[in-house]
């Protein structure tokens, strides 16, 4: 696992997606603090790690405490009373499987909106379903959520049964485009 810190390098470039916007920045380590650069903008920054989850920054007369937590390739960040999600573009692209936004495949592979318990599967294999028809009901934290069909389709397969505990990755129901 990782050792050292910035010893070997004085400047590092980073490419991040912040709230789905791509930004390229660099950080250069100096004797005292860092230099931050983004395009034309450049500024010295005094960065101190208070704990693994807290940074204290002094930059251009502002002083700010930043909270940060890493979840695999995603940084969750809180500052100025707001939450940010920062991630590496590569990881994001993997998640998105090369596509932009919702694909037809997403529409046909029905997943639970959150981890929970399947209260009721409302359709069976072979059923024709209309757009917005309830396919299943999943409960989490005492709240029931109806999963509705995003389009007119036929049920190709059902992979969940009443009472199953499911996460938000599992495909509950596979649909296929209906011919009509």
């Amino acid at each position, binding site marked *: 696992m990782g*050792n050292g810190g910035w010893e070997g390098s004085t400047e590092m470039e980073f490419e991040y997606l912040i709230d789905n916007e791509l930004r390229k920045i660099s950080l250069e380590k100096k004797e005292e603090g860092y230099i931050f650069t983004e395009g034309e903008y450049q500024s010295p920054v005094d960065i101190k790690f208070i704990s693994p989850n807290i940074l204290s920054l002094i930059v251009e007369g502002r002083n700010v405490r930043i909270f940060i937590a890493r979840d695999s390739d995603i940084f969750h960040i809180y500052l100025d009373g707001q939450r940010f999600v920062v991630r590496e573009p590569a990881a994001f692209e993997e998640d998105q499987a090369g596509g932009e936004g919702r694909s037809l495949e997403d529409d046909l592979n029905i997943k639970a909106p959150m981890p929970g318990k399947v209260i009721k599967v409302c359709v069976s294999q072979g059923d024709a379903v209309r757009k917005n028809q309830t396919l299943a009901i999943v409960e989490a934290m005492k709240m029931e959520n109806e999963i509705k069909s995003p389009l007119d389709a036929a049920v190709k397969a059902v992979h969940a049964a009443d009472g199953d505990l499911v996460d938000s990755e599992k495909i509950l129901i596979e649909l296929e485009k209906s011919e009509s």
Partner: protein
Amino acid sequence: MFKKILIANRGEIAVRIIKACRENGIKAAAVYSEADRKSLHVQIADEAVCIGPAPAVDSYLNMDAIVQAARKVGAEAIHPGYGFLSENAAFARRCEKERLIFIGPHSKALELVGDKVRSRLTMEKAGIPIIPGMKNIAEKMEVYEQEAKRIGYPVMIKASAGGGGKGMRVIKDPADLRPGLEAGRREAKAAFGDESVYLEKYIEEPRHVEFQVLADNFGHTVHLYERECSIQRRHQKIVEESPSTALDPELRAEMGETARKVMEVSGYNNAGTVEFLLDKNKNFYFLEVNARLQVEHPVTELVTGVDLVQQQILVASGKKLDYSQENIKQNGHAIECRIYAEDPLSNFLPSSGKILFLKEPWGPGIRHDCGVYSGCEIPIFYDPILAKLIVWAENREKACSRMIQALEDYVILGINTTIDFLKDVVAHPRFCEGKITTHFIESYFEDWQGREKTDESKRLALIAAAAAEGNKTLRPEKESGSFKNLPTPWRTLGKWRLGGKH
């Protein structure tokens, strides 16, 4: 006094009750489901008993397991908290039979107030105001006209088989009654296959105002003033405060007396809450009794100085209430915000998973009743409440500033919460003015999207991410093998580029 109490609950309320036990020299025994071994309430209890699998029905609702746990640890009493078995008359009866003291009202009072129809009838007989309405479904238009006159306009047409607003319409002018009834019947027929409709008083600009009551086992009952709970989302309270901006001293005294009377009529003992609906003309109507400690009890504690959990325990142990109505005073202003594991940007979907980081706000006038911690897992099986943030200040204006600042200082990373949403609710001009009704959230927050993020803030976030990338301590420790073999930036000389297509 009891030597040991079993707390038949989990989360923040179990933690709160355990702390009350400790301060009173009483041992606290926790129960937990298999999903809760590492929960905060289990960590801090003096003893802890596993009562079954994760689903509540197998554990926190399992009366046999809970009674057995109480026997095992030798507890003399059970505190049910809120939710779960707290208003379950069968459980109270079971405790009575097992000679375990149920810290709450006795089973008969629970049965009465739990039966909405019977309790409203009882109240009406006792002269407690309830929302005026028709007792039976009529056929003839004349009957509706007479009833509407008796109830007083505006009236609301409601479908007997109703729900979801179908068939409902508000009638302000008597001339509109007939056409309204006809339309309502058609809608009801279409929606429910049943055209029966009835009339009820329409409550304009309704506010939800409830009164906290304490009653000992000797018939002595006092109220501890009101809580305003109009800020609701899908009938779920999310912000509560005391005092209410809607009451003046006379109305407060009248409603408080009414609340006491409701409890006396019900033969109620221990702590309970009388819920009222208040209309824009300051008429109030009895809704129901909440026969338990409420989620929002801390606002009353901060304003009156009375520790409600301590009083519950004292009363249950057979002590007399040490307060007269006159020596309970309202002092300053308290506001509570409920912190839920929900995503306000995705239709308030529940958000389970791991809290990667939690930093609670603290400082003068801030109370935080909390059931979670940095690193804990939020299971899918229970209510999404994580914690409650409660502030007290000399007056409402200062309490609002304090709450906004405290919410700003409240950090939870890893799961979604209602913190940012609540901050905007409390900062809303209408809220600041105290001009709130139960329609507040649907009126002003239907399309809430959070605040616009400035470029400066984003830049700071980017700097933080980049700095953290160079700091190995942020990398989560994982078993080697399961961790991807990423190149380490800090060993590379010169410029180095992370991710992305070049």
